[in-house]
């Protein structure tokens, strides 16, 4: 053997092929849904125009609606990270998309189901169908804020399609609610909307994110539950990891800080975050944040699910107290996109609800956070003085 290194440019000849849907190892659930609709068993809510078609894991195309969306909110977002949903709505408003923020919805109840098993398949499918029926009645299309709701609803959809007895039971319950059995043509996560809008987001970008390194945490329930339904792209990670979130981070010109525990979960654990939080804390910091710090030293972690933002962000306090190598702010893709498009870090993105110090990140984004906070404090004073009752959308963009 020669002692001089010889490079074999394997990467030059390797380009991920575009998957052929004819080779997809799974059935196309949408075709089965339409068959059931033809048989009078259920109603399929069609994705309204305008929509964008985007490729999923096995090369099939998925329709992502742009306008007239019915926002299936996340219990944890509304409760703990309200800047998350606010940013999603803000982005819709910026692009002039109409949306519905309804009160006729429950959470998917899957968190409780996964945590404690105090529910069952029939109840879970009925809750999903009830929420779908509520969306259908408005004419707007369901857009799901939470990764778990999204994954769980996809599972529920598959169960409804494959088990006639379950379908019958759920249809009977729906009849008692005077509602038909409704299943949407596509189950759509808001981060998929952001993914297909990423070039438009970049066009409207007003802040320079090129000096920012972001590590990505993909949400397990987004791509591990019913994996064929998640977005993949041969140009992102050679098509072998989901493209959602990473696509946005690249589009706004940031560097993706890769790390070796990318596929690990965040540590949320459903019952663990509630009653065994030492596990969640340890996992989030030792397997995710510390590894990211060591290998990529990111300015921020970007993810796309309620539980992931919560666990990765809040777990860092205790680790910091033990002098561990942590301290990376955690944002959702929606908040990151909103900041890129000039959203106010407090009025819109509501960063004061986050735990890990984010001020260095804001400085890197060219945001004078002290001035922004002063602006927000003056808003608070106006509210306290009774000058205004609430902060309005107009105030948020003032």
């Amino acid at each position, binding site marked *: *053997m*020669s002692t001089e*290194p010889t490079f074999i440019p394997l990467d030059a000849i390797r380009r991920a092929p575009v*998957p052929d849907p004819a080779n997809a190892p799974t059935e196309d659930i949408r075709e089965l849904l339409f068959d059931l609709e033809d048989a009078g068993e259920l109603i399929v809510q069609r994705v309204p125009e305008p929509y964008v078609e985007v490729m999923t894991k096995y090369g099939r195309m998925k329709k992502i609606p742009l306008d007239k969306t019915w926002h299936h909110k996340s219990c944890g977002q509304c409760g703990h990270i309200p800047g998350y949903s606010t940013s999603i709505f803000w982005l819709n408003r910026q692009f002039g998309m109409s949306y519905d923020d309804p009160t006729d919805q429950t959470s998917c109840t899957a968190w409780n189901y996964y945590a404690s098993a105090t529910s069952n398949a029939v109840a879970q499918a009925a809750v999903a169908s009830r929420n779908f029926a509520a969306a259908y009645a408005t004419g707007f299309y369901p857009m799901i804020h939470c990764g778990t709701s999204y994954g769980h609803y996809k599972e529920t959809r598959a169960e409804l399609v494959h088990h006639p007895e379950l379908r019958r039971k759920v249809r009977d319950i729906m009849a008692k609610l005077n509602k038909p059995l409704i299943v949407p043509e596509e189950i759509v996560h808001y981060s998929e909307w952001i993914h297909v809008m990423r070039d438009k987001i970049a066009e409207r970008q007003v802040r320079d994110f090129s000096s920012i390194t972001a590590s990505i945490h993909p949400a397990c329930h987004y791509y591990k539950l019913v994996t064929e339904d998640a977005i993949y792209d041969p140009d992102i990670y*050679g098509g*072998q990891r989901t493209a959602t979130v990473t696509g946005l981070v690249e589009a706004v010109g940031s560097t993706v800080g890769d790390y070796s525990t990318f*596929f690990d979960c965040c540590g949320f654990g459903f019952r663990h975050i509630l009653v065994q939080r030492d596990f969640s804390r340890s996992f989030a910091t030792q397997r995710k944040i510390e590894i990211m710090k060591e290998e990529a030293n990111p300015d921020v972690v970007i993810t796309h699910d309620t539980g992931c933002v919560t666990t990765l962000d809040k777990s860092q306090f205790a680790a910091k107290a033990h002098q561990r190598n942590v301290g990376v702010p955690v944002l959702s893709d929606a908040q990151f996109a909103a900041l890129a498009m000039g959203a106010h870090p407090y009025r819109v993105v509501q960063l004061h609800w986050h735990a890990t110090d984010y001020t260095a990140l804001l400085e890197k984004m060219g945001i004078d956070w002290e001035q922004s906070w002063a602006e927000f404090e003056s808003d608070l004073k106006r509210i306290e003085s009774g000058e205004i009752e609430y902060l309005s959308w107009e105030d948020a963009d003032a």
Partner: protein
Amino acid sequence: MRSDRVVVVGAGPAGLEAARLAAELGSPVTLVEKNEVAGGMPIHAHYATLTHHFRSAEGAMREMIDAVTSNELVEIRTGTEITSVSGSVGEFTITVASNGTTEVVEAGAIILATGFQHFDPSRETQQYQYYEFPDVITIVDAEKMLKEENFVTPTTGKPPERVAFIQCVGSRDRQIGNEYCSKVCCGISSKQAIEIRKMVPNARVFIFYIDMRMYGYWENEIYWPAQEEYKVNYVKGIITEILSKNGRLVIRGEDTTMGRPMEIPIDIAILSVGMEPSAGTRTMAKILGLTSNKYGFIETDRDILDTVTTTVPGVYAAGAATGPADLDDSIASAGAAAAKAVSLLRTTAVTV
């Protein structure tokens, strides 16, 4: 019109052997090969050596090609594809196309030796990142490097310190839809592990497996020597994911024998990709109206009692066109197909 000609499709090991034997039995043979060069996968995929005797692939295929070209009864048509077939046993009319011109060949029997293709890792559902990390390669890439006697880490150009084979990529996997075992990958990986140890003596070589399928003499000729003489590390437990840690690959899995998680930095990961039916096998099955199994391999009509007779009278299949096969299997089934084809033509010639 009745013909005593046998048309063999595919000039890989099985096709060459079928053509040789049919001609030696006295039948005129037309051997059709779509590539410009005969020799099949061992030549086109740049195999270094054959499993299990470590014989040079080029040398072995040269011997097979010479045996065919030296027989005047064999007409070889390379760069030629079959576009349609009509007629039935004893009187097939086969249209072949070459360089834009078409011709008709009359034949009494057809032997398909259209073979397999290597599984493309873009379809694997594990997380091995073949299209992301240049240091993740397949046994096909490794074979080429071994043939060039230049086994180095692609990103550094330096000899690797640690090499890991991952078995059953694209095989034995319900999520991909390939539930079958590809038969040869355990042997090929072990053969390559020995070759790597010879070429890069300082490299540690691991083979991560679910079950080692080293039947017959592969056990004493490859498996035991790999363990005993070449100190290849066999670990039962398949790899879950390959990612990059500070520029070097890291693989994770469970060492199921010891019941403990593994996380090992490595220089080269070699995906032991299995077999799928080739495009030629699929196309010919369609043209001839043959029954294929759900994987696209050609089915034979009497299962284990007849491994070469297809569902269409006068059409036989040999080698990996009927399913994963090693070279010994392919040569044996090619011989059976040739003997059955020639025997059929002789019997029908008498009875008609």
